[in-house]
C-alpha cells in the first residue's frame, strides 16, 4: 500500500508527456470541449434489434467477436476467434485483469452498458497501442460528457427499465450528467436481477441466475482553456451468479476501478494533445460450489487481482501526418487459492495456490502513425516495444511439475504493423501486415491445477513457455453508394509457439470432476483465418436490410483443428422505421461445426437458426424523449447450443422482452 501511495504522489506532479489516441482530433482545437477521446465513429451501446442490451449482447453484434458462454452472465469475448489471453482488454486504456482462474470474470463483466460510450475493437497488431497483443484490442470507452461550450449549465439524464420474461430479468439503469464550462460530472447506477432461464424445450436451466449492481462516477474540472483534470471510478458487484456449465457458481465478485487523468491540448506545434492517467483497480472473485448437490467435496476458490498503472498518450500532427504515441505501465498481482474440505469438515483442510501470488509488470511504448500520401491513399504504420516481467512468490508450486523453473522471468515483446488504404471512387481497399509477440498469461505460465470443465482436465502453467509470435496479413475491399454498401474483410495469422494444453503423463488430477492433467505447452505453430462479409441495402426510404456472413478456420501444426473456432455463421436483419415507429426482425445462426476439435473436448455442434422480432415507438412526453420497445428473441423456441457453449449447455429459448427509455 505504501508503495502505491508513493507511486501516486511521485508520479502525479511529474507527469511528463504523451496523450490521446485518435487520428481524428479536430484540426484547430481552441477550447477543450471534451475530456475523452474523440474517437473513431461512435457506436451507441445498443444493437439494431434491442435498445437495452448488456455489454455482452452489444459486443456480440461485432463481426470480429464471438463468445465462450458458461451461462447467462459474464461471457468471455473471443477476438478473431482467439481467447482473452491473446487480446488486450482495457477500460479507457487501463489494464484490468480478472480474478477468476476459470475466466468467469472477463473485464467486460465489470462494466455496464450505461457507463460506456462505445467499444473500440481493433484487429491484430493494429491494436498494439494498449500493449502487446496477438489477436487485437478491445477498449471499453466510458461515457464522458463534454464541457458546456458556453456558460450555460446543462443537465442530461436517461433512465432505462425493462423486463425479460424468459429469465424474469428485471433491470433499472440510470445515468445523469451535469456540464458547465468549468466542471463536468457523470454518474450512473444500475441493477439487474435475473432468475434461471429456460431453454428451447421450456426446461429450466438451473444455476443460471445472476444479480449485478454497477455504479460509476466521473468528475472533470477545466484547469485552463486547454487543460483539464478528471477522476473516475467504477464500482461493480455481482452476487449469486450461476454458471450452469461449470461445477461451481459465483458467490460474489467485486471490482473497483479508479483513475485520475490530466489532459493538455496545444494550439500549435507537433504535439496536439497529451493525456496522462494514473489508475488503480482491484478485483475480487469468490466461487461457491456448495449449492451443487453433485459436489461431494467442497472447495473454496477465491481470487484477487490488483493492478495499478499509468497510461500516457500524445497525439501528434503535422500536415498530412498524424501519430499516437502511448506509454503503458502497469503492475498486477494475481492471487488465487484452493481450499478443499474433507468430508469431516473439522479435519485439516487441503490447500494450494492456483495462482501462487504472481506479479506481472509491464512497461511498453507504442506508436501508431498515419500518413495521407494523397487524397486517395493513406499509409498506417506503427509498432510497440514492451518489457514484461513475472515473479511467482510461491514458486515451489510451479516446481512440482517444472522443477528448477525460474522464479522470475523477463520478456521483451516487440510488435510492428503496417497497412495501406486506397479509396478509388466508391471502392476502398486495404492491405496490411503485422508481427508481434505476447507473453504467456498468468494461468498459462504459473497456473496450478486450474480445472477446465470443458475438456475436464486440470491445467498446469509452465513458466518457461516461449513468447507467442504472430505473423499476420489482412486485407479488405468495399464498395459503397447511396443505397448500398458491401465490404469483405479477411485476415490470416500464423502464430509460432501457439500455447495450448497438452496432456501430461505425470501427476494425477486434483479436482473432483477432472480426468487428467494438462500442462500448457507450445505448438510449433498454428494458423488462423478469418473472413467476414457484410452488406447493407436501403430497399425503400424507410426499409433497410443488413447482412453479415463470417467464416473462420484454424488448425495446429499437424493439421488438427483448434477449439472454439466459429463455424460459418450469418446474421441478416430488416429494419423499418416511420414516424417514430420502428419494427425490426433478424435471423441469425451458425452452420454445423464440422471442424471441431475432439482433443479439446469439442463435439459436432449442429446448425441452429434464431429468429427475432422487435417493435418500438418513440414519442415526446413533456420534455422527455421516450422510447418503448417490445420484442421476442428466438421466437421459434429453438433448442440449441453453439460451438462455444461450455459443456454444450443449451441456450435460452423464446424470450419476450420489454423496455422503456426516458431521456432528457
Amino acid at each position, binding site marked *: *500500500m505504501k508503495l*502505491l*501511495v508513493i507511486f*501516486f*504522489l511521485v508520479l*502525479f506532479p511529474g507527469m511528463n508527456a504523451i496523450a490521446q489516441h485518435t487520428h481524428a482530433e479536430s484540426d484547430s482545437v481552441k477550447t477543450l470541449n471534451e475530456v475523452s477521446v474523440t474517437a473513431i465513429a461512435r457506436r451507441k451501446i445498443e444493437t439494431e434489434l434491442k435498445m437495452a442490451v448488456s455489454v455482452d449482447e452489444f459486443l456480440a453484434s461485432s463481426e470480429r467477436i464471438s463468445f465462450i458462454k458458461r451461462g447467462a452472465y459474464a461471457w468471455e469475448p473471443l477476438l478473431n476467434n482467439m481467447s482473452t489471453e491473446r487480446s488486450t482488454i482495457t477500460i479507457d486504456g487501463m489494464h484490468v485483469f480478472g480474478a477468476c482462474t476459470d475466466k468467469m470474470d472477463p473485464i467486460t463483466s465489470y462494466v455496464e452498458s450505461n457507463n460506456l460510450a462505445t467499444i473500440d475493437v481493433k484487429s491484430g497488431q493494429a491494436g498494439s497501442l494498449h500493449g502487446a497483443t496477438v489477436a487485437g484490442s478491445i477498449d471499453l470507452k466510458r461515457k464522458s460528457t463534454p464541457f458546456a461550450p458556453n456558460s450555460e449549465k446543462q443537465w442530461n439524464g436517461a433512465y432505462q427499465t425493462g423486463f425479460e420474461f424468459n429469465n424474469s430479468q428485471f433491470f433499472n439503469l440510470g445515468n445523469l450528467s451535469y456540464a458547465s464550462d468549468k466542471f463536468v460530472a457523470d454518474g450512473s447506477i444500475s441493477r439487474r436481477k435475473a432468475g434461471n432461464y429456460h431453454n428451447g424445450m421450456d426446461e429450466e436451466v438451473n444455476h443460471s441466475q445472476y444479480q449485478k449492481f454497477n455504479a460509476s462516477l466521473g468528475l472533470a474540472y477545466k484547469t485552463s482553456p486547454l487543460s483539464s*483534470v478528471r*477522476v473516475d*471510478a467504477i464500482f461493480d458487484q455481482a452476487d449469486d451468479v450461476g454458471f450452469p456449465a461449470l461445477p461451481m457458481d459465483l458467490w*460474489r465478485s*467485486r471490482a*473497483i476501478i*479508479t483513475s*485520475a487523468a490530466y489532459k493538455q491540448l496545444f494550439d500549435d506545434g507537433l504535439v496536439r494533445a497529451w493525456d496522462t492517467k*494514473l489508475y*488503480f*483497480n*482491484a478485483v*475480487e472473485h*469468490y466461487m461457491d460450489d456448495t449449492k451443487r448437490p453433485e459436489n*461431494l*467435496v467442497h472447495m473454496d476458490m*477465491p481470487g*484477487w487481482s*490488483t493492478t495499478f498503472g499509468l497510461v500516457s498518450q500524445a497525439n501528434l500532427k503535422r500536415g498530412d501526418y498524424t501519430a499516437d504515441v502511448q506509454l503503458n505501465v502497469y503492475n498486477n498481482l494475481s*492471487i488465487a*487459492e*484452493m*481450499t*478443499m*474440505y*474433507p*468430508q469431516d469438515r473439522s*479435519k*485439516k*483442510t*487441503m*490447500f*494450494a*495456490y492456483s495462482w501462487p501470488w504472481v506479479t506481472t509488470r509491464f512497461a511498453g511504448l507504442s506508436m501508431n502513425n498515419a500518413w495521407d500520401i494523397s487524397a486517395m491513399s493513406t499509409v498506417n504504420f506503427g509498432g510497440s516495444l514492451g518489457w514484461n516481467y513475472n515473479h511467482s512468490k*510461491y514458486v*515451489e*508450486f510451479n*516446481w*512440482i*511439475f517444472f*522443477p528448477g523453473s525460474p522464479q522470475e522471468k523477463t520478456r521483451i515483446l516487440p510488435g510492428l504493423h503496417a497497412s495501406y488504404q486506397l479509396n478509388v471512387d466508391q471502392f476502398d481497399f486495404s492491405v496490411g501486415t503485422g508481427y508481434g509477440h505476447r507473453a504467456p498469461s498468468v494461468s498459462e505460465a504459473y497456473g496450478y*491445477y486450474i480445472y477446465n470443465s470443458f475438456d475436464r482436465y486440470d491445467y498446469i502453467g509452465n513458466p518457461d513457455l516461449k513468447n507467442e509470435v504472430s505473423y499476420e496479413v489482412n486485407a479488405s475491399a468495399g464498395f459503397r453508394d447511396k443505397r448500398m454498401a458491401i465490404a469483405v474483410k479477411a485476415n490470416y495469422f500464423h502464430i509460432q509457439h501457439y500455447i495450448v494444453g497438452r496432456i*501430461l503423463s*505425470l*501427476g*494425477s*488430477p*486434483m479436482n*473432483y*470432476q*477432472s*480426468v*487428467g492433467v494438462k500442462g500448457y505447452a507450445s505448438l510449433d505453430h498454428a494458423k488462423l483465418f478469418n473472413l467476414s462479409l457484410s452488406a447493407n441495402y436501403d430497399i425503400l426510404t424507410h426499409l433497410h436490410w443488413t447482412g453479415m456472413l463470417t467464416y473462420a478456420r484454424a488448425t495446429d501444426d499437424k493439421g488438427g483443428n483448434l477449439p472454439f473456432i466459429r463455424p460459418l455463421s450469418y446474421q441478416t436483419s430488416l429494419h423499418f422505421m416511420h414516424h417514430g415507429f420502428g419494427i425490426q426482425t433478424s435471423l441469425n445462426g451458425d452452420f454445423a461445426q464440422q471442424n471441431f476439435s475432439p482433443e479439446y473436448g469439442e463435439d459436432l455442434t449442429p446448425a441452429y437458426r434464431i429468429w427475432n422480432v422487435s417493435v418500438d415507438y418513440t414519442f415526446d412526453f413533456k420534455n422527455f424523449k421516450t422510447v418503448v420497445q417490445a420484442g421476442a428473441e428466438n421466437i421459434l423456441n429453438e433448442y440449441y447450443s453453439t460451438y462455444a457453449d461450455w459443456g454444450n449447455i443449451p441456450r435460452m429459448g423464446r424470450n419476450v422482452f420489454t423496455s422503456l427509455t426516458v431521456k432528457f
Partner: protein
Amino acid sequence: MKIIYFLVAVCLAALSCTKEKTDYEAAIDSGATEFTEFKEVVNVLDGDYNISIEALNGAFYNGYNEIRLKITNSHTGEIASVSAVTFLPINTNADGVSSSCPHRYDLLSIPDSNYYSGYSVFTSKSSADETWELYIGFTIANQPHALKYPITVQEQKNKNLNMTAFTGKDDEQYVIALIAPHRPKVAENELVAGIYRFNKPTSPPAGDFPDPAQFTYTEVGGYTLMLDPRMPEPSMGNHSSPNNRDLTQESDGLYHGVVNYTMTGNWTLNLMMLNQNGRILKGTEVPTDFTPGIEGAKSELYIDVLF
C-alpha cells in the same frame, strides 16, 4: 491535491477485501512444528560424573530421535575423557517382557564436539503398560561405568516423523522411520528414512541384564523403498504427485528420495520395500486411477503424513 487524497482513500477502501486471504506461511508453520534446538532431556549423576543426554526440543518422541550424549566431571564441569560409550533403550511391557528398538549401541565420538552421537527409534510412547529405560555404559580410566535411567517417550505429534514396524516376507522384523523433512512444503521435498532390521538373537541371554546381544538392530544396506505418495481422502480421489523418486541408501546409511506434495493436507506414503536382490519384502502396488468419492487404497506398507 484533493484528487490524490480521494484516490488514495478509494484505494484503501478497495483494498479491504470481502474475504481474507489465507496466510499460507502461517498455515505451513502451524501445521508441523519443527524443532531445531537440542535441549537436555536426561541429566544423571554417576559418582564423579555427570551424564547429560540432549534431544530435539528436550524430549523423546515416538519415532526417530537423534541423541547427543555428554559426560562431564561433576566437580570441574570439564568434559571427561571417556571411551566405549554405549546406549541401549529397553522397553518393558505389562507382562514384564523386555524388548528394544532400533538404536545405535556404540555411540560415535564426533570430532571437534563435546558429545557422542547416536539415535533411537522409539517404537511406542510411554504409558501405564509400557515403560522405557536407557542403559548407558562408558569407560573412564579403564574403569567401566554402567547406569540406567527411566525416561518418558512422548507421542509424536508431527506426523511427518511417523514410523512403521512390520514383519517382512523374509520373516524378519523391520522398522521404517521417517527422519526428514520435519516440515514439508508444497514442493519437492527430500525424503529421508531409516530402515532397521532386528537381529534375532542366536544365543540365550548371558551376563547381567540387559545382554546387548539380545537387542541388536542393523541399518539394512542396499535396499530400495519404492514410493507412491497419495492423498487418501475420498474427496481427493486418490490424487498423487509427479516427479517422485524412490528411496535408496546413501553414505550416511539412511535412505534418501524425493516426495512432491501438490497441496497441504493428509498424505499417505505408499511404500514397497525391496531387498538387494529386488525381492519385495513388504508392500503392494496401489491403484493409480483417479477415483473421486472413494477413499484411496493404501499399500500393505505405508506411512501417513500430514502437513
